[in-house]
């Protein structure tokens, strides 16, 4: 039943080849899926993966989607290095959007250069706050972050629903669950003529640079890495596991909150129930696919954006439900995880029966 055997040394080649393999496998399976649906796979793949790259406008749309994905993924990557499984980015971006959007709604009748920066700051605070709650639960009550962060996503959603259906509903909005449209001072300015690309890309770029320095050179990042790889060693070295939890969850909440704010202050322009097509979850895949490092995250951010955009195009031209994007995302993650294993192990061709190992454990391994 077991198909693998260990390699003598981890394969460097596979580390960068595995995302390629995963992508290829996903393409093969998706072609089969299209065939089963009675579509021409070549055409479907073209609409999905190539057409979004064919015009400048499409590329700009790609960028609008990639930017929040990259931003959130950067924050998540820090926590994943420490093996802290934060799946609460969706909720963190929602609360960030709420906090920041709330400023826009509060000062709806005002103008001024200070509104937007304040919104960004509040978005960051909101997201960080939402991430720090599970951090507190973990450090003080030992509650695993996987389930608590996930539950927070649902709570955040309901808070948003409550607000846009209730106190923050636009009185002139014909009873739709949405807030007022943000005014000009509360909206991110466009930076490229004729496109919807806005100033959030500068924020993302700045985050990228800071992240690079942090990961490569900082002692904090080293401590997180040790916590993830060998928690007993981190304890031995005196690296506070509590600090690691606060830092990872707080930082990813911070980034996700800003990303959420940028969405509502950008392409969406208001608060409504649909501020994110699952960016918080997709960003997890982006972080993994990007090998938790800056260049990889940028590339996979664009790839994931491609999946989103392709899904929208497929809906328009092939009448396919946008849910198909979710199928691809799931498949991609599966194949990525599987091909990642090939870094440390390889497929066992000779089906010799594996001997049971002695249960002897090396006393020198913790």
């Amino acid at each position, binding site marked *: 039943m077991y198909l693998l055997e260990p390699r003598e040394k981890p394969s460097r080649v596979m580390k960068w080849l595995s995302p390629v393999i995963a992508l290829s496998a996903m393409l093969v399976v998706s072609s089969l899926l299209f065939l089963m649906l009675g579509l021409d796979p070549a055409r479907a793949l073209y609409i999905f993966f190539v057409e979004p790259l064919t015009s400048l406008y499409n590329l700009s749309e790609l960028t609008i989607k990639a930017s929040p994905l990259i931003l959130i993924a950067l924050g998540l990557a820090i926590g994943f290095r420490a093996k802290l499984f934060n799946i609460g980015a969706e909720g963190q971006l929602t609360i960030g959007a709420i906090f920041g959007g709330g400023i826009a709604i509060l000062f709806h009748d005002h103008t001024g250069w200070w509104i937007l920066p304040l919104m960004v700051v509040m978005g960051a605070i909101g997201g960080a706050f939402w991430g720090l709650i599970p951090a507190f639960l973990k450090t003080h009550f030992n509650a695993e972050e996987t389930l*608590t962060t996930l*539950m927070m996503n649902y709570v955040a959603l309901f808070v948003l629903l409550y607000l846009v259906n*209730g106190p923050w509903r636009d009185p002139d909005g014909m009873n739709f669950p949405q807030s007022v449209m943000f005014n000009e001072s509360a909206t991110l300015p466009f930076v490229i003529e004729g496109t919807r690309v806005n100033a959030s890309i500068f924020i993302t770029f700045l985050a990228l640079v800071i992240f690079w320095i942090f990961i490569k050179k900082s002692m904090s990042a080293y401590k997180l890495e040790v916590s993830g790889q060998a928690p007993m060693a981190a304890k031995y070295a005196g690296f506070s596991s509590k600090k690691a939890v606060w830092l990872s969850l707080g930082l990813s909440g911070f980034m996700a909150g800003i990303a959420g704010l940028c969405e509502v202050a950008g392409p969406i322009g208001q608060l409504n129930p649909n501020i994110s097509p699952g960016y918080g979850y997709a960003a997890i895949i982006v972080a993994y696919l990007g090998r938790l490092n800056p260049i990889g995250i940028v590339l996979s951010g664009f790839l994931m954006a491609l999946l989103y955009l392709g899904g929208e195009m497929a809906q328009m031209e092939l009448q396919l*439900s946008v849910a198909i994007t*979710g199928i691809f995302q799931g498949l991609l993650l599966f194949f990525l995880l*599987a091909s990642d294993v090939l870094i440390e*192990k390889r497929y066992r061709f000779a089906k010799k029966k594996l001997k*049971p190992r002695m249960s002897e454990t090396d006393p020198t391994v913790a």
Partner: protein
Amino acid sequence: MSIEVTAILAGTIAAATPLVFAGLGELVAERTGVINLGVEGMMLVGAIAGFAFAAQYEASVASALLVGALAGMLMSLIFAFFTLSLSTNQSACGLALTIFGIGISAFIGQNYVSTALPGLQNLNIPVLSDIPLIGPILFQQNYVVYLSILAFIFVWWVLAKTHLGLLLKAVGEAPESAHAMGYNVLGIRYCAVLFGGAMAGIGGAFLSTVYTPMWIENMVAGRGWIAIALVVFAAWKPARLMLGAYLFGGVTILQFHAQTLGLSIPNELLSALPYVATIVVLVVISRDKKLLKLNFPASLGKTFTP
């Protein structure tokens, strides 16, 4: 007022049923050391599979449940293959399964959004259902609810009283030792995971063909995740799981009766109640280190290489 209480309690039992199925399934899988975070995805796939089959072939609930179970098993087979035969990280794989399950169920379900199914008649167990107060609550449920009770008894008995149950516990604690003894650890884990998938599928199919006999995208609404949390709360003991499931059933039902109970909390915030309750429950159980340490399957989540 007593009619209200009766309705709440009866509703609690029905509401708890999907959690019972999914929770028992996940409990068995986790006993052998495998954590499957894909329960939400498996339940959704079971839900749409059961629903589509019932709608397409005008089939009975029983066959819909069976189809749901098979669909859940198929999903869990994918998960088992990746995590057991290919050593991938269990948590990440489970998340992938959920994302995949949400997508595929929504995709298939788009054709069934406005379809309605007949649902299921509640049983009326003679004599017992005439008992005042508890009669209507306990003995006028639909048969799937009683099926869930049977499932509980079965799982409890196997785990506590049989050699297989001992083996499951041993594999979960120290797969290397079990392997050295000559037991097929992967085979046992495969079976446990498939059982979990089948149960999740039944839970989902129950939701879509009995509880609210219609299909809405994402209708499982996080129950899969709550089921996973319940397994932790249960400290991997079936009886405690039932307790947790019924508590949660109650919390879920509460939101529909809040107005009549005089609570003036906005609807959306009431909807958040089960999720907040889950967090509270997780916090409470995580503080009891002794209980956890004695019952926690020590190899949970760790990859085993034979």
